[in-house]
């Protein structure tokens, strides 16, 4: 037997089976960010100097470049999900909400691509 209401059956609409997707990806990126964050802060702390040669030499090391690409991807994906929740919680009007969500998503995708491209350019130079 079906538990769907007659109206629900008539409309032919139902769950998109994505109810937990946002929650789950937020947790997946959170777990990935545990080792990546510790690596990131302590690696930066151990840089001998902030000048161009020291930092670009560090970024160019293959293991660092790969970890940085992972870090940038996870951070910006996690950030996008978090900002989305904040916008959905506090922006009341539908128009402003959708505008803010689009803006946030565009900024996050552009930043992610720019960050990954910058790391690859330094690493492959």
């Amino acid at each position, binding site marked *: 037997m079906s538990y769907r209401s007659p109206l629900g059956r008539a409309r032919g609409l139902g769950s998109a089976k994505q109810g937990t997707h946002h929650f789950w990806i937020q947790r997946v990126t959170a777990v990935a960010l545990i080792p990546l*964050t510790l690596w990131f802060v302590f690696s930066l702390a151990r840089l001998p100097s*902030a000048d161009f040669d020291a930092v670009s030499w560090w970024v160019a090391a293959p293991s660092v470049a790969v970890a940085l690409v992972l870090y940038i991807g996870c951070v910006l994906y996690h950030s996008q999900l978090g*900002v989305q929740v904040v916008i959905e919680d506090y922006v009341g009007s539908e128009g402003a909400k959708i505008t803010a969500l689009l803006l946030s998503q565009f900024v996050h995708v552009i930043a992610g691509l720019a960050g990954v491209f910058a790391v690859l350019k330094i690493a492959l130079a």
Partner: protein
Amino acid sequence: MSTPATSKATPQRPLSPFMIGPYYKPQMTSMLSITHRLTGLALTVGALLMVALLVCLASGPEGYNVLVPHLTAWYGQALLAAFTWALLYHFCNGIRHLMWDVGKGLDMPTAEKTGYAVIVVSVVLTAAVWATALATA
């Protein structure tokens, strides 16, 4: 007679009061919760700054070297220290959230203990990062 709705944003039904205001007493746990969200928003700005720095680095020494004196000046270091703590606070409290997600530590005494632990560990980790940085410099 029902009164007309003042706007679409205020439906005529009981609503839970907003967390800030006269209805709820501020508690350590609720303050940590809002700090998690505020540090998250600050870290979004931090992530964009990190990307901007990487783009400057990739575009060559001329642009990047203009930034270095600002990064090493007191205000740059203070900003980096603030971002370090925000990141490590969100990191520690995020682990607390993951623990809740698997159903552990949801009772009040444990939630308060882990809350204090998050404050202490985030400060200790921040100090450890900066001690490492100062020892390396």
